């Protein structure tokens, strides 16, 4: 019997979200391979990777919002829901989305319907799932939510149209929408990437408070290691559609096992220089979707690769995480 390739979390009753052997792809290309992880209630987990690693697709697969022509298979279990989210009908998923599980996307400028007032868009999600009895109550609750996300003059903001708000303000609205029905799981896909740095910190703060208040699990997707370090407790590193390393943030960021993780950390470090006096980078570029090498996905960019790497490395669990590499860093000092 072959060793399992990724961690097999027990489908425990305490997990807020369990993902097992998730694959995402088009008819001819696999874009995400064999992803498994779980989230505990109140836990804040980061998913890092560069563009093209498959992290956004993973998130979309969880929500059942994959674009036309992209399929997913595997198991996604949400606490309190007795069926697999993968393959469930749109109607069933619609009951869960925005209710038990919510998502905030990257681009706030286009995420709101331009023809509807902002307050009504928040109220809509509450009325949809019955968390408010009528329109008037929903509108009032919307104003409350806008106050919670620190929008100045929330009553006036509720009557505004999206084009009258800035990017940061719109993202607050989208956060309000996501948290309106007190979801158990909040997924954020690069929520601050499109925003100014000064606004970023505020939004991150709101997100962390928002999930803390509700004891919700947070899956935070980003390519920015600094953000993960501030926001998350645990982190998963994704490359080429696979999770290559995971563990507590502190452990992974100070003692990375996977060469890719180390490469990422070095590249983010603007102070240390390589031997030739330049900033460190990972050689090569991320291959196009579906064009990752067989065996270890990282092997054509990895300084430690050899013939063994032509085989897919098994997942090696380590304490509260693990990695998939034939030649992990720090192997010498085990």
């Amino acid at each position, binding site marked *: 019997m072959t060793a399992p390739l990724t961690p097999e979390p027990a489908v425990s009753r305490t997990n807020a979200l369990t993902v097992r052997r998730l694959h995402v792809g088009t008819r001819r290309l696999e874009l995400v391979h064999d992803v498994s992880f779980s989230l505990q209630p109140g836990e804040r987990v980061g998913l890092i990777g560069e563009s093209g690693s498959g992290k956004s697709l993973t998130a979309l697969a969880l929500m059942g*919002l994959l674009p036309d*022509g992209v399929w997913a298979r595997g198991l996604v279990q949400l606490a309190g829901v007795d069926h697999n989210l993968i393959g469930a009908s749109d109607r069933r998923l619609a009951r869960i*989305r*925005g209710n038990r599980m919510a998502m905030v*996307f990257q681009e706030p400028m*286009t995420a709101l319907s331009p023809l509807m007032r902002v307050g009504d868009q928040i109220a809509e*999600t509450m009325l*949809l799932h019955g968390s408010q009895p009528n329109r008037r109550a929903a509108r009032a609750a919307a104003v409350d939510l806008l106050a919670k996300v620190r929008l100045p003059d929330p009553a006036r903001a509720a009557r505004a*149209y999206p084009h009258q708000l800035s990017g940061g303000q719109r993202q607050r609205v989208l956060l309000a929408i996501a948290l309106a029905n007190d979801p158990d799981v909040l997924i954020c896909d690069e929520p601050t990437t499109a925003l100014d740095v000064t606004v970023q910190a505020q939004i991150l703060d709101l997100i962390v408070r928002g999930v803390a208040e509700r004891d919700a699990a947070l899956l935070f997707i980003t390519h920015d290691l600094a953000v993960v370090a501030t926001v998350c407790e645990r982190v998963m590193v994704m490359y080429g559609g696979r999770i290559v390393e995971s563990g507590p943030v502190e452990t992974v960021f100070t003692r990375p096992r996977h060469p890719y993780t180390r490469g990422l950390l070095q590249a983010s470090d603007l102070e240390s220089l390589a031997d030739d006096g330049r900033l460190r980078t990972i050689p090569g570029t991320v291959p196009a979707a579906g064009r990752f090498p067989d065996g270890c996905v990282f092997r054509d960019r990895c300084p430690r690769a050899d013939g063994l790497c032509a085989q897919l490395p098994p997942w090696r669990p380590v304490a509260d995480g693990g990695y998939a590499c034939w030649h992990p860093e720090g192997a010498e000092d085990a």
Partner: protein
Amino acid sequence: MFLHIVHRTLALVLTLLLASIAVFLFMAVLPGDPARVALGVNATPEAIAALRAEFGTDRPLLVQYLDWVGGLVTGDFGVSYVTRAPIGPQIADRLLVTLWLVGSAMVVAVVVAVPLGILAAVRHRRLSGILLSGLSQVGVAIPNFLAGILLVALFAVRWRLLPSGGWVPPAVDPLGFLQRLILPALALGLVQGAVLTRYVRSAILDVLREDYLRTARAKGLTLSGALRRHGLRNAAIPVVTVLALQLTTLLIGAVVIERVFVIPGLGSLLLDGVANRDLLLVQGVVMVLVLAVLLVNFVVDVLYTVLDPRIGRAVA
């Protein structure tokens, strides 16, 4: 927003004025003297001069133009040089008929296009969607008079279900009126429906790709729910614009359909006028058609401003 409407109104009036000048000058180029034509070859110079004075064609062009335009504004289209009958009432009668035709054709077009267009968009990757799209493409290529002829061949000649033409006012014989309205309305409307389907499909496809639709679904709306509540409103804007253009196409298309089905509408009045070289009549009808076209465009422009809160409103 108000300023915008004022601006458009001024533009409308200006264009109308320019159009009236263009039409007048154009008809003035027409060779031949209406008085001479009316009296025939054996007319005496005095009779011709007298008639010219009566017609007013002995005055300078500018005066004639001002007189004519002045009359238009008050609804007086003058008296025909050929039939000696006042033109205004003729136009009014015929206009009503054409409006019936165009109105019902518009209804047909919308009823066909909206559901089919949405279907074609939502299923655009599946066979049914592709077939629908192809069908609409073929439909666009069929001239409306061809559709009319084919419909007549089928329903009037072959199966004898409906009359092949003619017209009866609704007040006189409602059933007969309806019977005579169906085929021309279908001929005019189905073809436009095909054109409209393509626009609806395109508008819905655009909306399906938009981020706010994804947000709507992430909120808990099903795909159809999201489309209904958010998509359609947003898709409506380009579709309404196209609808307006369609109205003008229908109006002009009615000219041909009226010929096919022998319907006494504005179009056939125009054609008769041209055949009879009744230039004052032609001028009048053309101005009415031009006014209709410009008015429709104007209304749509204003509607756009009302529908889309992004236009003409101050940004906070």
